[in-house]
């Protein structure tokens, strides 16, 4: 029988984590293979081209595009300062001269004899990429960045907001089903990765932002509060660029949902440890889930790790329901019938039989279950 493939979220006490640290454009790589790096160490840098401003200088001067160069005192590649005169006509008997000025400080990118357009490029914007996690450089991507590898405790969430950040793990909830309210957030959470429980109120999140927490990890959060938070709805789950003031990681889903006890206990065991956190989520085209990474500083394997071939769900494997009416429930696969089954909704689908922790057995569409990965 074919195994089924429903990629689940990874919650791993110890795993090899491999991170590509790439520049958006080619640049300089500052590390070598074998180097041990710290999470905040710069591993590559480059300069993003500045904004580009096309201006029709021939029109400004009232000259033919083909003759524009005669009146320019600059050429391609020359630097200019904003407001500097770059072209001037002779006028008539020294009068009625027209001139044109640089619209931005930067360089002249191009001059067109066809359109009369001069393209100014503002000064480049420096960009640096850090290692994100403590680890070892196992590969250098020429002119682009490197690959950092470490042994780490690794927890994936289902949805996040905000980008990469770092902080010390601190607990704000006592149990995986506790609702985190504003009272649970304290001044001492500044700069910390705050671990919540089952549900996070908007007030608690707001207070975490106010006290300067680096990140908040929660089991559930209300979808409509994202709109209140951001001022717009997240229509398609491509996130990571939000400027919230912190990074939010939702481990289970939207609503009041208990954090998976294994996730909660694992994070709890890491209190006081430095963590690297990323809220970037991309569900379409190259799935990316938010994550919490706590590296083991004593171990940074030197050999490039190759992840094992993904395997499907088989009988006896631990699974989690990911849709109503069994959302968030944990159990084990009891059987995988081949024949499609009619569901309550009337749809016919391939199903699996799951035995929940309380001994209850239910039939669930295979699509509504994910493997619990360790």
């Amino acid at each position, binding site marked *: *029988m*074919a195994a089924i*493939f*429903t*990629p689940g979220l990874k919650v791993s006490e110890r795993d090899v984590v491999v991170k590509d640290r790439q520049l958006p454009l080619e640049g300089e790589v500052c590390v070598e293979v074998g180097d041990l790096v710290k999470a905040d160490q710069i591993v590559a840098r480059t300069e993003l081209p500045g*904004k*580009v*401003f*096309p201006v*029709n200088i021939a029109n400004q001067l009232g000259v033919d*595009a083909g003759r524009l160069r005669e009146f320019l005192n600059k050429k391609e590649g020359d630097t200019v300062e904003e407001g500097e005169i770059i072209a001037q006509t002779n006028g008539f008997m020294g009068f009625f001269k027209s001139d044109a000025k640089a619209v931005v400080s930067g360089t002249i*990118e*191009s001059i*067109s004899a*066809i*359109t*009369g*357009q001069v*393209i100014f490029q503002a000064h480049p914007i420096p960009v640096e990429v850090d290692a994100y996690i403590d680890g070892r450089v196992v590969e250098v991507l020429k002119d682009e960045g490197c690959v950092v590898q470490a042994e780490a405790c690794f927890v994936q969430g*289902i*949805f996040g907001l905000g980008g990469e950040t770092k902080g010390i793990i601190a607990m704000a909830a006592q149990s995986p089903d506790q609702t985190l309210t504003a009272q649970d957030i304290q001044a001492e959470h500044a700069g910390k990765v705050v671990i919540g429980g089952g549900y996070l109120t908007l007030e608690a999140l707001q207070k975490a932002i106010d006290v300067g927490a680096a990140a908040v990890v929660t089991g559930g959060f*209300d*979808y*409509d509060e*994202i709109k209140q938070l951001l001022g*717009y*709805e*997240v*229509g*398609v*789950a491509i996130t990571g660029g939000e400027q919230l003031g912190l990074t939010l990681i939702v481990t289970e*889903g*939207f*609503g009041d949902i208990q954090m998976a006890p294994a996730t909660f206990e694992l994070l709890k065991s890491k209190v006081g440890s430095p963590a690297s956190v990323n809220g970037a989520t991309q*569900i*379409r*085209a*190259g*799935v990316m889930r938010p994550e919490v990474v706590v590296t083991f500083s004593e171990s940074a394997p030197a050999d490039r790790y190759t992840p094992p071939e*993904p395997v499907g769900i088989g009988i006896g494997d631990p699974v989690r329901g*990911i*849709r*109503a*009416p*069994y*959302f968030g429930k944990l159990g084990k696969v009891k059987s995988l019938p*081949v024949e499609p089954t009619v*569901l*309550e*909704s*009337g*749809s*016919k*689908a*391939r199903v699996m039989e799951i035995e929940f922790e309380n001994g209850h057995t239910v039939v*669930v*569409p295979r*699509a*509504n279950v*994910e493997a619990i990965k360790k």
Partner: protein
Amino acid sequence: MSEELNIRSVLATDCGSTTTKAILIEKVDGEYRQTWRGEAPTTVEAPFEDVTRGVVNAATEIQELSGRKLVREDGTILTPETSPTEGVDIYISTSSAGGGLQLVVGGVVRSMTAESATRAALGAGAIVMDTFATNDKRKAHEQIERIRQLRPDMILLAGGIDGGTKKHVMALAERVKAARPRTRLGGGFNLPIIFAGNQEVNAEITALLDESCDLEIVDNVRPVMEHENLGPARDKIHDLFMEHVMAQAPGYDKLMGWSDAPIMPTPGAVGLIMQTIAEEREINILGVDIGGATTDVFSVFGGIFNRTVSANLGMSYSVSNVLAEAGLPAILRWVPFDIQEKELRNRIGNKMIRPTTIPQTLDELKIEQAIAREALRLAFIQHKEFAVALKGVQQERTIADAFRQTGSGDSLVKMMELDLLVGSGGVLSHAPRRVQSMRMMVDAFSPEGITELAVDSIFMMPHLGVLSTVNKKAATQVFEKDCIIYLGTCIAPVGEMKSGAPVLHVQLSGSSNVDERLGAAELKRYAFEESEEVQATLTPLQKTLDIGAGPGKPVSKTLKAGVVGIVVDTRGRPEIQIPEDSESRVPLLAGWVDDMGEYPEAKN
């Protein structure tokens, strides 16, 4: 591959953004029939990052169900057929995985060359990420920033009729160059740019762009104002789709090696089938394909083909965007039970982050079908806005691209003139009851007068579209026998109705007879035998109401009953009238659901 080849069996897959759907076509008693189907999650993304895994999983499902060996031990598709239980003669595929084919389009004037270029891109099955033009109200530097951010699969640049403006075309090209656009999938390739504008600037365009981009020059999409020539640009988009996009997407190099015909973008294949139906039957047709990420609408009115793609309206990845664009009240108005707004928002959010899940309970199904109505309705609004005629300009059309601009600038989509509405895509094709598909389409499209409705039985139009390029006979036979399911006919009077008075006298004569006067706000279903033709006499009982013959005039016609039957809808046109407050809305919706026999009773 030619039709002369004696193809005995075909395995066809469609690699969608969410699931990979496989069908097996076999010759049964001398006729091509679709016999088995299988599906599996698409595996373009991590951790698999190899589209062929999903293809093999879907094929394995067919293998298990049919007993025909389709997958070799090494995980490749077994071709050709060596016995009736081993292998298939050909394997073919369409794809929209990984976001499909994404283009940025440019032209000098937004409503002229830029629009022609957009038509060419859409006709090729692409998603148009943005269209820029010299008069699109954005400043040049804003356009450049936008092109930089977008990272398309390719750029189609038009502009100027042949012998027309050079300066504006070059200004546009200079902006493209200044943006230094990069490809979405990276891989160290230069971005493909197709120039299909004023042919008199080909040399200048080459000098400007050739070094920094992978430049292809084809014939102008708008050589003269009165004529569009979309074929060359469209064909070049298809070529580059195969050479660049497919070749770089994870696993596609392998898939292309397996496939016996070029892999087509899914919408391109569906469009091909839609046009074939309209041409063969000489009818006006409206088709929709609602997917996980996008919704495509196709129309052929008076022989003019149009396609639009609503890139962020879909039932899984884009489901939250349907909520964002339609608003919660618009979705709630189709939910036939009370639900807390917060609860509904969370359910929709959870579907977005777990896009491959399916509704297990009846309430979950009802919510999904409510969302589908809004996704379809919004996509249709976008289609009507795009499918317009340009004033005073006429042009020829070819079978494949076939956009033509005629007439007055009005929308070409005239619902009263629509003959057939065809639905496709998971939520329509796989609805547990066909009546649910009919309800969703009637509610979303508000057909006017008398309209036949059909669905793609198990979502195989993309497969048949690509099959038609290999073996038209097989595609046509399977289309007729196994693909299209006639749901029935919808009768909907248009015009202002006086409430409290009867609006329509319905007389139907078939295996059973109907003679009934209906009031306003009713939705009635009259079931007949599936293949039955029903003689109908429909008489408006209010002078303002039109069912196709003009206000107040009766219509006598033979109607197709289909699997659902004849549905009479007096809920108002052009807009279906539904109360906003839940106290009056929920019982009204529940009444329509009961009258139509839409859902089974919940078991608990």
